[in-house]
């Protein structure tokens, strides 16, 4: 009970997150107008916003996020907030909740995210809501369009950069885990193969050398292969952040970018790639990510229990091993099915993007030619 107490407490905090949607404002304007207006106010003040049909997703920092729900109510359109987390925030909370005593750390992280998001909703969003009557349409001028477009490009590029960086860290993490396993196998196996006084020191040396070689060589290869893509995406994210800040303020930063339309054209060319990077990240789909984590964690734990607990009756150990292997197979099947779906979506997106690229080019020439 003490071991799983952290996980249970985290569950309580998460249920509170989902159920509590305190009200921020009520207005007579239509929900669509309120969403458009609020999205623009947040973007113009430098915040990262994703517009959905009936809500806005706002990112606060690397862990905390906020969902702003806009719905019709009995007294008019209601604006409510819901505390949320970024994909990294969810990863930290869910993974630590599932690992024994780390569950208590998960409670702390959940509460930290909760209080940050709540403060942002009450202070920052609350202040923006008081600026002008809600539902006031943003000015339909070029500057507004540029701020909105560059802000969206910044969001896509930053997300792609973070996903790519996280993918590199995950690969290195898996390699380190593999190196530890290799060390254990060589350390335990070599003295059996080479009995005698030299078996143990030789086993230790060989285990350490092979594990370090795998970790260092693997991590170097991953770094060399990933870094150019990560650097490129980071530069793009910075470029769009600077361009958006310039368009929003009207004052260029020294040496900063000025070409709003040119940058938007580049964003249109790159947006397909940014979306692809994001889609390829397993935690982009939290359900798949969580299912894979549960299968991997549960499967390896059950296999270890079945293999190591030699005081248990044999049928129980066989049962544990069979359950563990089934869970690991479930993990493999989930990853396979997720990869198949991603491939299909990539192909669909590529075909769709090609059609849009041609339409874009034709339309631009039509507009420019009068």
């Amino acid at each position: 009970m003490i071991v799983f107490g952290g996980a249970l407490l985290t569950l309580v905090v998460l249920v509170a997150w989902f159920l509590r949607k305190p009200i921020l404002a009520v207005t007579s304007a239509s929900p669509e107008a309120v969403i458009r207006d609020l999205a623009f106010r947040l973007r113009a003040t430098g915040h990262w916003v994703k517009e959905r049909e009936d809500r806005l997703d706002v990112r606060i920092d690397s862990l905390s996020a906020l969902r702003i729900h806009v719905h019709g109510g009995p007294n008019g359109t209601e604006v409510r907030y819901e505390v949320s987390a970024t994909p990294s925030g969810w990863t930290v909370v869910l993974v630590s909740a599932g690992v024994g005593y780390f569950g208590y750390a998960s409670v702390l992280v959940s509460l930290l995210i909760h209080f940050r998001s709540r403060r942002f909703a009450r202070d920052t969003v609350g202040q923006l809501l008081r600026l002008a009557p809600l539902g006031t349409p943003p000015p339909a001028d070029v500057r507004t369009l540029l701020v909105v477009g560059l802000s969206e490009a910044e969001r896509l590029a930053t997300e792609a950069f973070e996903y790519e960086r996280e993918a590199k860290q995950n690969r290195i993490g898996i390699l380190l885990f593999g190196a530890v396993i290799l060390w254990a196998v060589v350390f335990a196996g070599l003295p059996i193969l080479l009995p005698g006084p030299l078996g143990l020191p030789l086993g230790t040396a060989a285990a350490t050398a092979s594990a370090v070689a795998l970790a260092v060589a693997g991590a170097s290869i991953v770094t060399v292969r990933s870094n150019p893509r990560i650097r490129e995406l980071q530069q793009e994210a910075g470029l769009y952040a600077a361009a958006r800040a310039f368009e929003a303020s009207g004052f260029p930063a020294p040496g900063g970018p000025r070409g709003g339309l040119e940058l938007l054209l580049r964003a249109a060319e790159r947006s397909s790639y940014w979306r692809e990077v994001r889609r390829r990240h397993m935690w982009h789909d939290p359900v798949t990510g969580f299912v894979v984590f549960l299968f991997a964690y549960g499967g390896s734990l059950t296999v270890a229990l079945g293999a190591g607990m030699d005081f248990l009756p044999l049928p129980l150990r066989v049962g544990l091993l069979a359950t563990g292997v089934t869970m690991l197979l479930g993990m493999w099947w989930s990853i396979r099915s997720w990869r198949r779906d991603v491939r299909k979506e990539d192909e669909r997106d590529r075909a769709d993007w090609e059609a849009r690229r041609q339409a874009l080019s034709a339309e631009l020439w039509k507009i420019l030619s009068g």
Partner: protein
Amino acid sequence: MAGMDRPDLYVIARILDGLWHANGPMLRTHLQVASNVNYDIFSRYLEWMQGKGLVSVEDASDSHVRVALTAQGAEAYRKVVQWINEVVRGRAPGA
């Protein structure tokens, strides 16, 4: 106008960006630097854009040539930005 049947959209975007941000007529030489192409190429682009009614070129009394965005050019700039916006945001443009 050989070779200008299909000008580079990025160069046109740079010229339009320069003029839009200048918020008024701009010295031709300054605009050429902003467009990041050599003088000959810039002149051809300017001629093409003038022909389409997007920009106007004024020879001022101080012997400086100035370029300005026409009303048609400003409207084209707005439309192009709006259109690309929709593409970046993953929506079907024109829908």
